[in-house]
């Protein structure tokens, strides 16, 4: 089935990763006065203490949500470029609900807030899907523009009507302490959302490969003509995958706000959306590979951060290393010779 990876792809991926690793080490050697120290911190940093380790896992967990959603959208042939806005809206919606509603107990509170977050993300992305279905509006562009609108509107909510006037942060008030998602590993942000993400991975896998709707989505994405020929409801799958990817971004956002930030801070989910796309593509749009892809991603971030603090590695070098890895990670072949056109 198409969720299996064949040996040559695996080989190419490993080769690409290996090359990226070597280039990374070379970069570190050139950039640092004490290269060995930088290398050690970069690679072992994420494991150096509970905080770093927990945060890495937490970040990976959040990325898993977005990666799963995007995988499903990509599988159906839809492109959701509005993740930035959907995460932000989801995160903020969850916070606003937590602040403004009196919940009878923490579980109902947390669950409702997260669900509201998911719904807000889903509706925003779903709207782009609906426009596509209705008037064939290009979802790539509409989701991007919509995200631009949502980001600014959410900025307004946070620094306008819901601003915490007693705080120096550009933020909402904190959510009630009882609605904090409990953090494990004492101080880190690591919380149950990581495990929920893992469960979601199973669910997404099952959804995509074991349910009738997943079947419809996969076939519509692979060969629209065939899906139409088979009488599958292809129009529905302009909307549903968008709803799912937006919802997953919403989940990413609401878990981030309920589990890590505990309030809505202006611009606090910046960059989450792009990372979701990256994770999905690195994973080859396969839920089974979203976990390792998200871990690689979070590992790189954590490694950079730790190395920055402990050695003379600079922030931009983290970016450079990530760039090198991104350049190569999806390479299908690494032959330097120009491939003859007609082979």
């Amino acid at each position, binding site marked *: 089935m198409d969720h299996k990876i064949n040996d040559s792809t695996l080989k190419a991926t490993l080769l690409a990763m290996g090359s990226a690793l070597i280039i990374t080490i070379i970069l570190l050697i050139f950039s640092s006065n004490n290269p060995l120290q930088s290398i050690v911190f970069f690679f072992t940093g994420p494991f150096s203490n509970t905080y770093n380790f927990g945060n890495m896992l937490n970040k990976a967990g959040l990325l898993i949500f977005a990666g799963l959603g995007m995988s499903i959208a990509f599988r159906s042939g839809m492109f959701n470029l509005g993740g930035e806005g959907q995460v932000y809206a989801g995160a903020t919606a969850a916070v606003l609900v937590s602040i403004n509603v009196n919940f009878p107990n923490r579980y109902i509170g947390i669950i409702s807030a997260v669900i509201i977050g998911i719904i807000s993300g889903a509706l925003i992305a779903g709207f782009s899907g609906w426009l596509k279905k209705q008037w064939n509006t290009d979802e790539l562009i509409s989701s991007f523009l919509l995200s631009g609108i949502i980001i*600014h509107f959410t900025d*307004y909510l946070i620094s306008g009507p819901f601003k915490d006037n007693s705080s120096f942060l550009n933020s909402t008030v904190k959510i009630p302490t009882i609605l904090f998602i409990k953090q494990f590993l004492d101080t880190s942000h690591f919380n149950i959302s990581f495990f929920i993400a893992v469960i979601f991975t199973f669910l997404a896998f099952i959804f995509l490969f074991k349910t009738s709707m997943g079947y419809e989505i996969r076939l519509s994405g692979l060969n629209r003509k065939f899906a139409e020929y088979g009488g599958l409801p292809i129009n529905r799958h302009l909307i549903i995958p968008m709803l799912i990817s937006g919802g997953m971004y919403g989940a990413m956002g609401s878990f981030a706000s309920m589990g890590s930030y505990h309030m809505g801070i202006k611009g606090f989910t910046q960059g989450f959306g792009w990372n979701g796309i990256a994770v999905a593509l690195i994973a080859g749009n396969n839920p089974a590979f979203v976990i390792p892809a998200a871990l690689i991603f979070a590992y790189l971030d954590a490694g950079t951060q730790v190395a920055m603090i402990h050695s003379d590695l600079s922030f931009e070098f983290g970016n450079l290393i990530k*760039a090198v890895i991104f350049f190569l*990670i*999806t390479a299908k072949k690494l032959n330097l010779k120009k491939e003859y056109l007609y082979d």
Partner: protein
Amino acid sequence: MISSVLFMSTPILLAAIGGLLTELAGVLNIALEGLMLIGAFSAILITKFTGSMFLGTLGASLAGMSLAYIFGFITLRFKANIFITGLAANLFAVGITNYLSSIIFGTKGVISLLNYSQLLHIAGNNIFTYIGLFITGLSLWIIYKTVFGLRIRASGFDISILKIKGIDSYNIQMKAILISGALSGLGGAVLALNIGAYVPNMIAGRGWIALVVIYLGRKHPVGILIASIFFAATEYISNIAQGFFQIPSDILLGFPYLITFIAMVIYSILNTRLNNGR
């Protein structure tokens, strides 16, 4: 006012025209933002050392081309996922400019030209406005009147037909990517040289807007010109509105996106109606 809007649209227009060439050649180019950033940085770097804005502009284009080459090479030769390599190019641009900046200037912040002289204005318009319009015209000519342009349009549709005709599509797509690098670099240079300084992150999403503009402009130079002016005009209006209305600034900052989004939806509704009527 018109000259302001025209000038505001220029960096976006330049990057979008470059992106148009790759788009027509069948390459989704999300690296525009990074290419512009490299251009902005190089423009200031070179102008600072040579004292010549002309060389700075030229250098910005070359720098854009260099990054575009890496992006194109890996994407086309290694057959890597173009979206990921595009993101990589953007990250790379941020990393390399900061790195070079700290090596050369000992700072990762603003680099300003000390002996700054204002950009040349002709008849009230910035010189780059004319360059932008000229390049738009030039692109019309390249795309529709030259052999290269014809081959670009063909390779975007179906590479296999190019094979039959004995045309090397790698070559065509690579050239399109290089041109987009040069034009995006130029777009970055326009931003930086007009301000007389390089500010990290100063592209501020214009590369992404350029990508949107390509689609809004129906992948045609004239459409792109109109779309980028449209976007610049909405931004201009929102700038002015900040002085008049008590609308929260955050809302006004989102205004260009809102108007563009509405325009896009209306366009697609009309388009559907028209097609159904046929």
